């Protein structure tokens, strides 16, 4: 039998790097090594050019204008919605709401859905590894409604204790709001299972996809979640744009989040009626230029190939974990079986901030601190970590430089 195996061609990283103008700059006299991608990724030329093109050729306020510019801008803006819809596999474009970012998407649900549906005695489940953005909105809601917040604990490896989660679910559970991928640990959570269990208990599920959307294939129908939130800027797109996906029937049952232009049908002092989805949740002039450029970011990911990007990033992750582990005194925090390209670590006898400053001296950008996940740091009894997070344009050579930088830092700090 003649079996032909087609091995997909690996990415030409050198060529991809050419597409990111910022990677040419120097920091402290050395070439920039950008390893803070979980905070925000750099932007390819096509995203930057889309912004320039919009402001140079199409700038107009959308939806209400009758002139050509307004029509073009509206079409481009709505095309981004269609692109996002297919990017995450939503049933309809009405289910895609543009927001400022993941934080606003979560707050939108906490205010509009939460204030209508949560009452005294209800329970909301989150986990120990949530970003503050998926803690505080629910704390505020629970305080206001006299509801309670239940926290799924995590193991030493940084994985959710699913048995504990199952025990928490009950007739009082109204919502499970869970991070898909931990920003501080890189852990990929089993969201399908989490959703199935929550639904069986009669609860809705919100998934915080801020860290997952750029790495994993997202299919909200397959995931079966009720809400999914993510940000464009962690996905090679512009800052100031986020997405809230919501199941249509749930979004329709929700009152508006903010009042203003765009979201109304008719306004009379006696009674105002609201616009249809998705506009009901997009009060005021939206971030038109950035939403339009966001489409170019998704096109960049698509044309590069998410699977290929993922394979490259997994290589980087494995190499980084292997090489970093060789540094005496270094402990990787978060050793989940399923991880994205995030390595969080501590170095015995050193403060993460010192590590961050010394790496910056070598042009290496990492993040240090508690990563807006203080409860998680408390869980591991550490003040914070240093975190390197990789994107498509990072290289094995850059990881070697990180290791060298750390070795030197250890030597100076010891």
């Amino acid at each position: 039998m003649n079996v032909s195996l087609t091995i997909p061609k690996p990415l030409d990283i050198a060529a991809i790097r050419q597409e990111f103008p910022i990677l040419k700059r120097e920091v402290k006299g050395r070439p920039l090594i950008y390893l803070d991608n979980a905070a925000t990724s750099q932007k390819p030329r096509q995203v930057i050019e889309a912004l320039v093109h919009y402001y140079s050729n199409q700038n107009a306020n959308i939806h209400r204008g009758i002139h050509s510019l307004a029509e073009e801008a509206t079409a481009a803006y709505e095309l981004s919605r269609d692109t996002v819809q297919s990017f995450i596999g939503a049933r309809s474009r009405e289910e895609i709401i543009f927001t400022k970012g993941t934080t606003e998407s979560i707050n939108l649900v906490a205010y509009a859905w939460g204030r209508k549906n949560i009452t005294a005695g209800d329970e909301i489940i989150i986990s120990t590894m949530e970003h503050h953005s998926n803690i505080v909105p629910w704390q505020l809601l629970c305080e206001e409604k006299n509801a309670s917040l239940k926290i799924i604990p995590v193991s030493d490896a940084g994985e959710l204790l699913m048995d504990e989660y199952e025990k928490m679910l009950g007739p009082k559970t109204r919502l499970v709001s869970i991070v898909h991928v931990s920003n501080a640990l890189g852990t990929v959570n089993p969201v399908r299972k989490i959703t199935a269990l929550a639904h069986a208990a009669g609860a809705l599920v919100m998934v915080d996809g801020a860290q997952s959307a750029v790495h994993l294939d997202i299919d909200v129908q397959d995931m079966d979640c009720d809400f999914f939130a993510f940000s464009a800027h962690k996905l090679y797109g512009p800052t100031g744009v986020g997405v809230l996906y919501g199941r249509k029937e749930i979004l329709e049952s929700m009152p508006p989040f903010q009042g203003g232009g765009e979201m109304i049908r008719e306004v009379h002092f006696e009674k105002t009626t609201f616009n249809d989805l998705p506009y009901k949740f997009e009060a005021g002039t939206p971030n038109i230029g950035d939403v339009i450029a966001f489409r170019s970011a998704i096109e960049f990911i698509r044309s590069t190939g998410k699977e290929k990007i993922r394979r490259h990033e997994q290589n980087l992750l494995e190499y980084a974990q292997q090489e970093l582990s060789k540094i005496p005194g270094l402990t990787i925090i978060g050793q989940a079986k399923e991880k994205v390209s995030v390595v969080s670590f501590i170095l015995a006898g050193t403060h993460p901030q010192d590590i961050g400053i010394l790496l910056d001296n070598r042009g290496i950008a990492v993040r240090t601190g508690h990563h807006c996940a203080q409860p998680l740091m408390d869980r591991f009894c550490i003040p914070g970590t240093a975190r390197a997070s990789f994107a498509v344009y990072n290289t094995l050579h850059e990881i070697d430089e990180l290791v060298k930088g750390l070795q030197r830092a250890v030597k100076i700090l010891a």
Partner: protein
Amino acid sequence: MNPDLSIAETEKEIIEEFALFDSWDDKYEYIIDLGKKLPVLDPKYKKDENRVRGCQSSVWLVADYEKGKLYYYADSDAVIVKGLISMLIRVLSGKTPDEIIEAKLDFIKEIGMTTHLAQTRSNGLLNMVKQMKHYALAYKIKDSVPSKN
């Protein structure tokens, strides 16, 4: 600290010392060394009321007032911040409240360490400079109020 030097003179001394370094690594190595040499703060002072909060690292600061002059003692959990503290103590400790309140502390900018003051969320250094000046102001006010005795 050298009690004979004014604040401006000590600042100048530090700027000259830093002019000898030609790389960032060398500058920071020196600062780290200063941090390691900073006298240990008695643990009894490491309480919340003496803590100057930062987002990433913490600083503890206490001040003594003797014969019209302020003396500072401090610590941090991060060694680079400790080194920066050490320089601030060298410049400000042993000076009068008026001198401390007036101090411009331009040396921080001159030696290229302004980033540490700008990152208010990242460390407690900026808050510490403020706190050092607050102590000076507090003792100045105290001195200007006639004692009951």
